[in-house]
């Protein structure tokens, strides 16, 4: 039938046909991406545009936003040492959480990938189970465990040991962050390891590489896309966290998320909050682009 159609169709110049085809493809692409695009524009691009506009406006006396252009918000950020402290701390916590999740998550993902197929689904399911419960509730659960009269201290006390200060420490915040973000590291790593051809490890060992070296030279570089994806998924939300630092860190360990929340709610300074959000976003975007570029090169 296709042959018949070509035989009877009016002769079309090849370039013309090509152009028609390109137009058709373009329409098709628009049709497919349309709904998602609409969603992004309404719920992401527009709000972000508002944020950017707000960041150049002035705070009114009652916490309202006054339409008066100023660079003052940014000037304040770049000179305020508190902001930079929180910013650097957030980045630092983000990095620590990412490394922690990577060190814990890689062996987990590897274990799942090496399990018999019928176990894998169950293990992945177990990784996902915490999502059935709200994150806030799970963080409260940690408070119950770490509290001065919490589970751990009750046990220590009954065994005759001294109680430990676990709550409202940096350690508690790190614990909460790693706990919360771990699945986001494990899942992309598992996806990567699941596709990994383990014969390559045998090949490396066959060529004289011991286990550690075959991991470093073969498995690690080939699962880099999973590491990159997992790291980004962990790093970015961590930097913006405020629940964990609030509940497990007390008021002591403020992260960017806390600062933002504070500006938008307690301090009623939307323009300054917006400026913080814009700077964070800019810095993180650049960091992520750089990261992906380096990891893609590895893959290529």
């Amino acid at each position: 039938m296709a042959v018949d159609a070509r035989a009877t169709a009016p002769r079309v110049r090849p370039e013309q046909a090509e152009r028609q085809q390109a137009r058709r493809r373009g329409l098709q692409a628009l049709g497919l991406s349309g709904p998602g695009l609409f969603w992004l524009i309404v719920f992401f691009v527009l709000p972000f545009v508002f944020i950017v506009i707000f960041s150049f406006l002035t705070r009114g006396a009652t916490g309202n936003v006054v339409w008066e252009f100023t660079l003052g918000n940014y000037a304040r950020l770049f000179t305020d040492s508190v902001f930079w402290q929180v910013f650097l701390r957030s980045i630092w916590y983000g990095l620590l959480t990412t490394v922690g999740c990577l060190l814990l998550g890689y062996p987990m993902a590897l274990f799942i990938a090496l399990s018999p197929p019928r176990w894998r689904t169950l293990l992945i399911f177990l990784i996902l189970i915490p999502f059935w419960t709200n994150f806030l509730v799970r963080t409260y659960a940690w408070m119950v465990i770490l509290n001065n009269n919490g589970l751990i201290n009750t046990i220590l006390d009954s065994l005759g040991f001294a109680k430990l200060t676990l709550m409202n420490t940096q350690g508690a915040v790190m614990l909460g962050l790693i706990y919360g973000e771990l699945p986001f590291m494990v899942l992309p790593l598992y996806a990567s390891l699941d596709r990994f051809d383990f014969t390559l490890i045998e090949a490396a060992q066959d060529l004289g590489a011991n286990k550690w070296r075959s991991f470093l030279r073969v498995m690690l570089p080939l699962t880099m896309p999973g590491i990159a994806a997992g790291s980004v998924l962990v790093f970015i939300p961590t930097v913006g966290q405020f629940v964990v630092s609030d509940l497990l860190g007390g008021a002591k360990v403020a992260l960017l998320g806390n600062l933002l929340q504070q500006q938008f709610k307690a301090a009623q300074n939307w323009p300054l909050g917006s400026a913080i959000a814009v700077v964070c976003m800019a810095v993180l975007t650049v960091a992520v682009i750089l990261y992906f570029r380096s990891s893609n090169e590895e893959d290529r």
Partner: protein
Amino acid sequence: MSDSHDIELRDVVKEFGEVRAVDHVSMQIKDGEFFSMLGPSGCGKTTCLRMIAGFELPSAGDVLIKGKSMGATPPYRRNVNTVFQSYALFPHMSVAENIAFGLQMRKVPKAEIAERVKEGLALVRLEKFGDRKPRQLSGGQQQRVALARALVNHPDVLLLDEPLGALDQKLRKEMQFELKSLQERVGITFIFVTHDQEEALTMSDRIAVMSHGKVLQIGSPTEIYERPNCRFVADFIGETNFINGTIRQLENSYALVETKLGNKVRGFLPRPLPLGAEVTVSIRPEKARLSVDDGHVVDNINCYPVTVERVAYIGSDTRILVRANGADRDFSVWEPNTRSTLDREEYWQRGDAGFLTWPAENALVLAD
């Protein structure tokens, strides 16, 4: 006589849980030999290879390389290299980096690595492909990279796990000869695992035929094909016709067998068998003749009156399926097309009557 053994398997057993994959296998592979392990899938050949490489450890018995017991030596401490069925080239490294990998792991000086990588590329005629990534190469080229990557390490023995399996027919034939000539040039012992009998026959100095974890026969290609020691080997290597029967008479290394079809067959006994033994007589299709007269045989020994059922002209031969008259039994016989002609009359036709005959030395009497 310096019949030094490069590799020896001593009464090796390998069990995976309940399953015994390798069942008391012993074999000795000579220095510089092209040795094949041949058998259907699941016969234990790949497991044997993996035990030599060190990926699996024997449940009992021992693997010796150059006379040294391997025990639990890990793969990276054995001077043995493998060409994997899937090639297992490192996709993130260039061809040259792949080939250099083994040398780097063995801490060979940089200058020497460069030299040997160059040699390796030349050995497999891929001099211009050093900078390519494996996925930019064809299947045959990837195969050659895998060979070079293993051979640059100058292993005591090269293990090849069905390396030609993924190639198309034509390339496969080419690679068979290339592998053989490569082996002769480098002089390294090759142990080749395959389920393809033609591959094994073409390349090997010796073949071990395996089934259900056991070695059934070890011998040269001609020994394996012409003097199989059991029904399985005769069946697995090449094509053959089987006739079941009982030994009624023994004379030197020949036996007279009374067949289930009611006549008598005189055949050669590759291994002595007792009078009255239930046997299978194997007659290769190219070793029987289809003729118009019975050749004046006595008592119908080694002769069946037959009718032609099907004729397949395949160029070099005419492959004919005949049916024994008065019996529900087909035989295949291959007649070489020795004369060039278009005359249909010169070839056998369906329905033609004839006699299937063969000399006694072409019928092998085998234990069931």
